[in-house]
Every structure is written in structure tokens, then in C-alpha cells.
């Protein structure tokens, strides 16, 4: 029992530490909902229906800026496609988990959760499950609370501050921090450049063209380097 308790503590602590960088993200998301003019409660419902900051921010800010619904949905889904890698990496560990855990666990598999639990795959199934749930539910609770807080703060902040600009800055930060090889830089630059050239396409569909060409450019660059 005490072993369980210390596992829970470690999970909660790990999640608390990794959540700190997500706080501005959560607040900016709340502000973006307010700025988009969408129903705040509907916007916030994405925190538990999607539970993924980048996709939530993508969907809400594109819908708020008048993009076609289909284009916004596609963009948000593409943003979250990286989770397929996490799912594949976690699949062997989850084979030793009960069925309910195999169904519920993936719901909590956000970036930070993956970063935490990928170091715990050698634990016995019971300990792994306790740690996974402690960390995941901590992330979940904090995310619901901080995005709601962003919604409450949103209307109080003067419009002249133009806080909506925080969204592209956050995305830029995510890109730069994630760049660990030159081919990723190529993917980002080509993605931005092609979207710029395709900006005239209707309903912001240029974004999808830019993203696809960017992914292709990164892949080709990696091929050429080998």
C-alpha cells in the first residue's frame, strides 16, 4: 500500500513539474476562445473532449478567424497525428494492462504524459498503471482548471493588448524547441513559405497545402542527407 502511495506521489509530482510550461498555453487558449467570439462553454468543452492544447488552439482560432469548418477540423487532426507515434511506442506496455485501462489510457496520452511514462515502461504492470493514472489525471485536472481560468481572465484584458498574437508566438516556440535536426527546420520553413504563397486560396485551405508540402520537404531532405 505504501509502495502505491509513493508511486502516486511520484506521478503527481512529475506531472506538476511538466505542467508548468503548459500554463501560458492554457491561459492563451482561454483567451483565444474569448477572442474567437464562440460560445465560451463550447470552446472550453474541447479541453475534455479533445484534451490536447495544440489541436484545441488550432481548431478554435481557425474557426474564429472564419476558416471553413472542414479545413479547421483537418488542420487540428493533422496537428494531433503525432500521437500515433506515442500509441505505437506504448502498445507493448499496454498489452499487460486490463481491458478498461487499454481503452481509458490513450485518452490521457498527451505529449507530457508520454514524456513521463516512456521512462517507466520497465515497471511491473500494477505500478505502471498507478503511475500512469496519477500523472495523467493530474495533467487532466490542471488543464481543465487553467483553461477555464483563461476564459475568466479573457474578458478582463483590454483589447488593445492584442493578446491573440500570443498564439503564433507559442507555436513558434513549439517549433523552435522541437527542432533537433536541419531537416525539421526545412519542413518548417517550406511549410510557412508555401502557406504564404497559397494564402489566396479560399477558406484558409492554403494551410493544408503548406503543411503537406512542408512534411514532404522534411522527408526528402532527410533522404538526401543519407
Amino acid at each position, binding site marked *: 500500500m505504501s509502495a502505491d502511495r509513493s508511486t502516486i506521489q511520484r506521478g503527481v509530482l512529475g506531472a506538476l513539474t511538466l505542467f*508548468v*510550461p503548459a*500554463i*501560458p*498555453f492554457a491561459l492563451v487558449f482561454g483567451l483565444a476562445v474569448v477572442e474567437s467570439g464562440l460560445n465560451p462553454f*463550447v470552446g472550453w*468543452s*474541447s479541453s475534455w*473532449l*479533445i*484534451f490536447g492544447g*495544440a489541436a484545441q488552439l*488550432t*481548431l478554435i482560432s481557425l474557426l474564429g478567424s472564419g476558416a471553413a469548418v472542414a479545413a479547421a*477540423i483537418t*488542420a*487540428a*487532426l*493533422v*496537428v494531433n*497525428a*503525432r*500521437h*500515433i507515434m506515442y*500509441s505505437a511506442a*506504448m*502498445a507493448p506496455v*499496454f*498489452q499487460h494492462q486490463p481491458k478498461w485501462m487499454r*481503452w481509458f489510457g*490513450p*485518452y490521457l496520452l498527451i505529449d507530457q504524459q508520454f514524456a513521463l511514462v516512456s521512462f517507466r515502461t520497465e515497471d511491473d504492470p500494477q505500478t505502471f498503471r498507478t503511475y500512469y493514472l496519477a500523472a495523467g489525471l493530474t495533467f487532466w485536472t490542471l488543464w481543465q482548471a487553467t483553461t477555464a481560468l483563461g476564459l475568466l481572465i479573457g474578458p478582463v484584458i483590454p483589447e488593445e493588448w492584442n493578446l491573440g498574437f500570443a498564439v*503564433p*508566438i*507559442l*507555436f*513558434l*516556440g513549439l*517549433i*523552435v*524547441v*522541437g527542432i533537433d535536426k536541419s531537416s*525539421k527546420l526545412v*519542413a*518548417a520553413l517550406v*511549410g*510557412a513559405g*508555401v502557406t504564404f504563397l497559397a*494564402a489566396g486560396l479560399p477558406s*484558409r485551405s*492554403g*494551410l*493544408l497545402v*503548406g*503543411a503537406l508540402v*512542408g*512534411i514532404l*520537404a522534411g*522527408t526528402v531532405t*532527410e533522404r538526401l542527407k543519407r
Partner: protein
Amino acid sequence: MTVFVAIVIVGLGTYLSRAVFILALANRKIPDAVIVALQYVAPAVLAALIVALLTDGDGNVAIGVPEFTSFVVGGAVAWRTKNQVWTLFAGMTVYWIVRALV
């Protein structure tokens, strides 16, 4: 209503992308080409998103001096610190200062 449906669809899709291998394909390997391509999804899409968010309704990309300066400084801070909080702080501060000056 449309917005709520859109959120539900993205929620389902997100869950599927997190669950697909855990629930269904535990013994399958992802083809190498797909793994390579998946690495480039985040940088390419996020960069495309930045441009899309700065595009106005007429298809003009509205990047002025404040935005550009903010990106350069924010990008440099992100590179040096690897820290989102500092990046956001630096980017927004520079944006406000340059906007007040221009």
C-alpha cells in the same frame, strides 16, 4: 452547434490517434516511411498555422515590423532557453514595445 460537432470530431480523431496501436495494432509495425514523415508533421503544420493565423480575410498576410521583430526575438529566446514561458514573455514584450514605437 457546428462548432460543438467540430470539437467532437477532433476529439474522436485525437483519441483514435492515441489509441490505434494500443487497442488494435499492437503487433503491427509502422512502416519506416510513415515514421519518418510523422516527425515532420509538427514543424510543418505549426509553421503553416502561424502564417494562416496572420492572414486576413482577403488572403493578405499581415506581418508588420512588430510581428517580424517579435518572431526574431521570440525565436532566438526559444532557441537559447528551450523554454515556452520565456519565449512567450520575450515575444509579447517586444511586440508591444515595437508596436508602440512604430
